[in-house]
């Protein structure tokens, strides 16, 4: 039975000469109502370091307008490689982009292209070296748009995951793909154990009855009620600077409460892989690949079980990765410093070709990074959304890097790959080359537009006198 729509004339006829009428939901145009009821889309950003060597990525036929017939270059072919037990990807699932620009550090005396590029990847600006991004990353902009409209009802607002082995305050910009605001990195999980706890501790035992879960949630909520009261009582006794410190704790409590409120019995059981039982397999140097596998498994799970709709995945920018214990590094190569970044810079001029050991090692890392990206896409493709389509079709996934090609340190010629169809807003199977006439910011605007964000813009509060602003999408995407 169709829902009757009221016309203003009908209402007036019945109510006499009323001047101001209440806005009834039924009178709203259908498109607006549909938009108001639209659940948040799924959006993932995926960062891999050191870019691509152009001949291995950019199809020679690519143009700024985009082409549908093109050479399947090496890295595109890597994405089409079959994996046992998972559906194959097709070129129509993908859009290959090349030739985007980034922005270098505002302090010309400062030359940390990798750090600047990493922040460019998701914010279109370089960020401050020690404090990070000047504003929100594109995934957070999208997330906050839908959250403000009440369209985000998953247990988690977003999820940021990383594969890295150590942290140093010196390389702060390298560690985060998601930025909640200026100088505010989003909490990022680089330990599979903690990520596993995070996904399951907040949701309670995913096994068991809905009734048991409700009791667990009630208990947790009652505890948080007391904690919040204590924060309020203590706050009243503190000075201004101490209240700021306590605010961070209160923020955490509120976030916990929000997650509990959003919780509903989770139909997904926990994945069979449990990192608690396997710490020795990934928590040491030289277990880069295994850690990536665990992190991708859990990250994919968060999306396929609808624990979140927004997320970022980051491979630390060419950082410490371990030794020849790694299966993806050939035992034939000399045993030296296995770090993609260093290998990239060790390639002698004119030796950027297969057969040069440094070039081969650098590319072995890229192949490894793309392999787990491919697995993630396939897990999304294997899952079915409520619409009946594959989750990948309903999603938008953005793969990028911190520069076009690692050895150059240039913040030009950034590559990007878009996967998924954003629920029908994006057509796949195209290759673009923007020849450095378009900025990453324009790509971000396009992404926001495809996700359904109205008046999309990327805005960063930078040290220059004007705010860095992008509000124009890529012309042909």
């Amino acid at each position, binding site marked *: 039975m169709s829902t009757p729509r009221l016309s203003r004339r009908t209402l007036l006829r019945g109510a006499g000469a009323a001047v101001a009428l209440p806005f009834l939901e039924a009178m709203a145009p259908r498109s607006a109502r549909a938009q108001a009821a639209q659940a948040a889309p799924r959006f993932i950003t995926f960062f891999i370091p050191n870019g691509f060597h152009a001949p291995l990525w950019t199809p020679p036929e690519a143009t700024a307008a985009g082409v549908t017939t093109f050479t399947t270059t090496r890295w595109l072919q890597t994405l089409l490689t079959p994996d046992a037990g998972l559906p194959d990807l097709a070129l129509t699932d993908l859009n290959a982009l090349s030739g985007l620009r980034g922005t270098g550090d505002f302090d010309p005396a400062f030359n940390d292209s990798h750090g600047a590029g990493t922040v460019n990847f998701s914010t279109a600006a370089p960020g401050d070296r020690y404090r990070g991004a000047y504003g929100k990353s594109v995934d957070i902009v999208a997330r906050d748009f839908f959250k403000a409209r009440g369209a985000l009802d998953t247990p988690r607002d977003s999820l940021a995951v990383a594969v890295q082995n150590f942290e140093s305050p010196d390389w702060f910009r390298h560690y985060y793909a998601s930025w909640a605001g200026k100088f505010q990195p989003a909490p990022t999980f680089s330990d599979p154990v903690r990520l596993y706890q995070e996904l399951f501790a907040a949701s309670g035992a995913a096994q068991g009855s809905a009734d048991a879960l409700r009791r667990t949630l009630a208990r947790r909520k009652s505890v948080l009620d007391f904690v919040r009261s204590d924060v309020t009582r203590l706050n009243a006794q503190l000075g201004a600077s101490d209240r700021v*410190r306590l605010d961070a704790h209160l923020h*955490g409590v509120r976030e916990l409460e929000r997650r509990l409120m959003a919780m509903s019995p989770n139909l997904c059981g926990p994945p069979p892989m449990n990192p608690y039982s396997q710490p020795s397999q990934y928590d040491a*140097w030289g277990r880069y690949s295994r850690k990536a596998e665990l992190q991708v498994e859990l990250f994919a799970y968060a999306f396929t079980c609808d624990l979140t709709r927004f997320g970022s995945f980051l491979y630390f920018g060419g950082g410490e990765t371990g030794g020849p214990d790694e299966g993806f590094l050939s035992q034939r190569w000399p045993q030296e410093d296995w770090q993609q970044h260093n290998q990239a810079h060790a390639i002698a001029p004119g030796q950027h070709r297969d057969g040069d050991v440094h070039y081969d090692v650098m590319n072995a890392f890229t192949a490894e990074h793309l392999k787990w990206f491919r697995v993630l896409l396939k897990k999304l493709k294997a899952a079915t959304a409520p619409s009946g389509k594959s989750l990948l079709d309903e999603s938008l996934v953005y793969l990028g890097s911190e520069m076009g090609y690692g050895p150059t340190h240039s913040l030009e010629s950034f590559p990007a790959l878009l996967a998924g169809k954003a629920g029908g807003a994006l057509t796949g199977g195209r290759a673009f080359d923007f020849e450095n006439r378009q900025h990453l910011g324009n790509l971000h605007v396009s992404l926001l537009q495809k996700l359904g964000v109205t008046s999309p813009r990327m805005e960063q509060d930078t040290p220059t006198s004007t705010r860095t602003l992008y509000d124009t999408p890529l012309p042909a995407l």
Partner: protein
Amino acid sequence: MTPRSLPCSRAALSLTFAAVALGCVGEVRTPKGVPQPPGVEVDPCAGVPAAPSTAELKRLTVTALTAAVTALTGVGPDAYAASLPALPAPNAFDSERANRGASLQYTLGLFDAAERIGRAAVATPAAQARLLGCTLADGPCGLDGARREANTRAFIARLLAAAYRRAPTAEEVDELWATQASVEADPYEGAGRVVQAVVQSPSFLFVVERGEASAERDDALLLVPDALLERLALALWGELPDASLRARATGWELGTASGVRAAADEMLDDPRANAHVERMVGQWFRLAQLPGLSRTQALFPTLDAELKRSMQTEALALFDGALERGAAFTEAYTARRAVIDDRLAAHYGLAPVGPGFRSVELGGHPTRGGLFATAGFLSVSNGNRDHSNVVKRGNAVRQLVLCDDVPPAPPNAEAMGGGEGDLHARPDCAACHVRMDPIGKGLEGYDAVGAEQAHAGPTLGRVVGRDGFEFSAGPGLGAEAARSSQAHACVVKQVWRWSMGVRDTDAQRCSVEGLRATFVAQGLSLRALVLAFVASDTFRFVLPESP
């Protein structure tokens, strides 16, 4: 402002005193405002009182948190430590990391940890009896039946008093009673729920420091005795005061500098003080990172978990007795003996020592002796490189021994290429590398895991700067560092950072200098330094808080 007493007796010096006095070597101290003859250096810190600290809301470190949880509930850290996220900033003390506030990730991890603590606290009848304070079968504090409300309320009041370090309010007791009664049919699970709520509440997790007006200073507040006791316990033991310490403190005069000094002198005799010093040097010299040391297995086949533990044991053993009266802290730098086992003996090419760890006399061994010749320090200072790295080691010595804030290298530093000559010639590289590389060269006789390696060319190291020196190998570096005024000041700064959880500021420069002078005057005694520090106005006084 009236003159203040200072740790070094500068006030006793007169204009005519142009030579050495009480460790103020080679410096002339002139009281402020007094004209000085031409050519005489003026001490800018003369007459400057010790700067107060700030009373900041401090979060408990993991060490203090786990000790407090164990004391409250009997639950050890194994039950929940995995839930607490490791905080970044490996070059900071954990007291500094805790003072950077509670990140969202930490709060989420703590929530999970609190749930585990609550469950563990009531998991068995024995645990319940421990928590509630009686044998439940026939004890008066059982929670069953008609006794539930009264006894639970009494338990809540006792728990809150211990956890919050103050008397609880009726509102708090009422709220916790309601919290557990509404969701738990089982009274003991209810008690676990109470524990879960209390151990993640800010009144437990944070230390609030309160001061009051004092006749001693009109520009700062004197910490009230309870707050001073907490500050002392956290600084000297890494824990909150327990009931026993609070009982002892009733006989102490914590309102006076001499009273605080006497109290601290007693506390430094407790084994917890030695354990806290061990934690400090473990974090300071990165020895705590040894278990996670990474090297290519094929290149270092003998480097296993056991050898890493031995390295750590040897290096930490150098600081045994650091708190003893009359002991010089720098004995760890210059020691001519080593506490090693057979694994380390083999690593060093020495004769076997037999089972366990033994103290071995090194005599005039040219490359062994002191902290900077230990495999442990030489390994962690080399970063994660498989080959000895002059830059990494030089940087480590600069930061850890001299407290030089060397700007970090850009990640693309290696892409710039070039050898030492290039790096020292390029203006954007030279400023740092001329300060680091020459130090690392002096340690090139050791490979990436601290064993000796053949090295072409001289291994004379050099520290550039006003107090620069040259040295040969680890023992040489130790000897020079033991004499270096910059290294002495670094000890002061590190003790300050460790105790307070914050770095000294520029405004506190004179306070640091005063403590350094005392440290030197007292024969580089760590104990004397700590006592001087806790008795100083920096420790005892706080600036008024902004409303």
